[in-house]
């Protein structure tokens, strides 16, 4: 028990002040790299203040001093015991060309799961439309999809005036924001042990399958491919990647086959989840742009073959990007160094 409290405080105050000054500096300058001598001083000051806190804690009736010391110790503790690397600078190009594809490959099984759920949804939607065409309003609650495909294609191809004339930029912005919201929502629903994410992916698949079968049955496969492929080959994988992130979150929550505590599991994947969702966001920006400025043009303005070819090129490039980017010796060395 400290008997001479005032003397104790008077003796220790300079050390507390010094620690506080150092902490203020560290917090104000995230790029600060302290020399070894200063680091040692920082550690000593932390230990001394922590010891002071331990002493003052026995002096239970002095809450003000205790709270002051707790605050100092808490701030210093976070700086000293943190083992994760300080995020100093962001290198967008390196992130895009290395981190994103590497993260995707690292968790590719979650992507396959996401893909399988969507394919199951597609099969369900397609079969439902094939066997029960009357289920269309239930499966596709969007007015422009309820029309007879042949009629819609005829209207689109004969249109003398652009449907989106003067509104293309707004339409593009709306698509980008809407799809990004859906992606974030798909990711966030991972916190429902993945149930929400699975429902979202399956439902997306149902709509996609239903639309595809509806147009194929009507003999409008070429229109369908020309309409969907330019933006769809990027947009659909983006949603799948968001689903991959959501499933990753769910797997960390469930923790099957991983004996680490929940906190450690979540900590382990948090960086990868953020990388994947940012990647999906970027893809959706591109998809929104293409959907507004290319997909909405049909024959005779742009031949379907050209649109389909463009979609194929995009898909090949996307596959190559995720399969090969960041696999070079240099990036692998960097990765193992990390």
């Amino acid at each position: 028990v400290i008997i001479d409290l005032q003397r104790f405080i008077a003796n220790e105050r300079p050390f507390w002040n010094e620690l506080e000054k150092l902490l203020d500096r560290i917090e104000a300058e995230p790029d600060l790299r302290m020399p070894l001598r200063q680091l040692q001083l920082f550690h000593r000051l932390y230990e001394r203040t922590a010891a002071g806190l331990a002493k003052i804690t026995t002096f239970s009736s002095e809450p003000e001093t205790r709270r002051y010391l707790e605050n100092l110790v808490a701030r210093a503790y976070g700086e000293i015991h943190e083992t994760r690397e300080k995020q100093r600078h962001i290198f967008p190009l390196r992130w895009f060309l290395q981190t994103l594809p590497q993260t995707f490959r690292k968790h590719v099984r979650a992507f396959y799961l996401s893909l399988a759920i969507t394919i199951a949804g597609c099969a369900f939607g397609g079969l439902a439309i094939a066997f029960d065409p009357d289920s269309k309003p239930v499966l596709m609650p969007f007015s422009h999809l309820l029309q007879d495909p042949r009629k819609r294609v005829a209207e689109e191809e004969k249109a003398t005036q652009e449907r989106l004339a003067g509104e293309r930029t707004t339409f593009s912005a709306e698509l980008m924001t809407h799809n990004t919201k859906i992606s974030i929502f798909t990711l966030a629903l991972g916190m429902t042990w993945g149930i929400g994410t699975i429902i979202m992916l399956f439902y997306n698949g149902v709509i996609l399958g239903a639309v595809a079968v509806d147009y194929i049955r009507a003999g409008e496969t070429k229109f369908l491919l020309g309409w969907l492929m330019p933006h769809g080959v990027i947009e659909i994988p983006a949603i799948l990647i968001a689903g991959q992130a959501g499933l990753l979150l769910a797997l960390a929550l469930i923790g099957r086959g991983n004996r680490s505590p929940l906190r450690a599991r979540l900590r382990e994947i948090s960086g990868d989840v953020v990388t994947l969702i940012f990647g999906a966001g970027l893809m959706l920006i591109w998809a929104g742009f293409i959907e507004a400025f290319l997909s909405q043009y049909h024959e005779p303005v742009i031949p379907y073959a050209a649109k389909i070819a463009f979609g194929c090129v995009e898909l090949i490039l996307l596959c190559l990007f995720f399969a090969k980017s960041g696999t070079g010796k240099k990036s692998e060395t960097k990765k193992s160094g990390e």
Partner: protein
Amino acid sequence: MKTSTLSIRTPEGIVFSQLLAGPVTRFFAWFIDQLCIQAAMTIVGTIFSLLEVINLNFAFALYVLAYFTISIGYGIFFEWSWRGQTIGKRLFRLRVADVEGMRLQFNQIVVRNLLRFVDALPAFYFVGGLTCWLNSKCQRLGDLAANTIVIRVPRIAEPDLDQLFAGKFNSLRQFPHLAARLRQNVSPAEADMALQALLRRDEFDPVARVELFGELANYFRAKVEFPPEATDGVADEQLLRNVVDVIYRTRAESRMEKAVVNL
């Protein structure tokens, strides 16, 4: 068990606690943040309305993108720049912190902010509020996923214990031999009792405070009988301060203080 503090034990065996913020305070902070977002959007809308003269479609597209970016990026930007605080959190003295007391990472901030999409369901953060209310650390789903907590940051100043002691003049010190006898007669437990009473004085009910200090003053008066000029006209609480001052402060310190006063 749900508590208002989170205790963290360091590897050195030191325990420090963080004051957890409750759902109501957090809701108010969120409400202020929403007002800030709306204010920012009004400003952005006014600026973009000038672009309408050039191209209405382009101006509206920019507005849509700006609204989306600001509404999602607001929390991420401020919590990253201000080390876990937004404008609302700063006003209510709240801060996002790592659940293990470590340095808050950018990833954690992004995850907790993106998961607002689920926490906000079905309206007014019902899911988040319910989770926060049920969780022992008052975490919403976003906090659980990101390993974060929201703590209260009370205004912390350096402690000033000078106010506890006698001040510039202590009538008991005019009789050094009696003061020495007082130090001799008072046991550590009695000294501690007097100090505790002074430290906790603001926690007492006013009537109880007067009664308690009356009893304590009489008790210490009986320990050593000081001449009337040292005790007459001195309030009971002040007398107790004088007693604690005599017991706890060394003569050297008080001499130094006297010298400073004489200067």
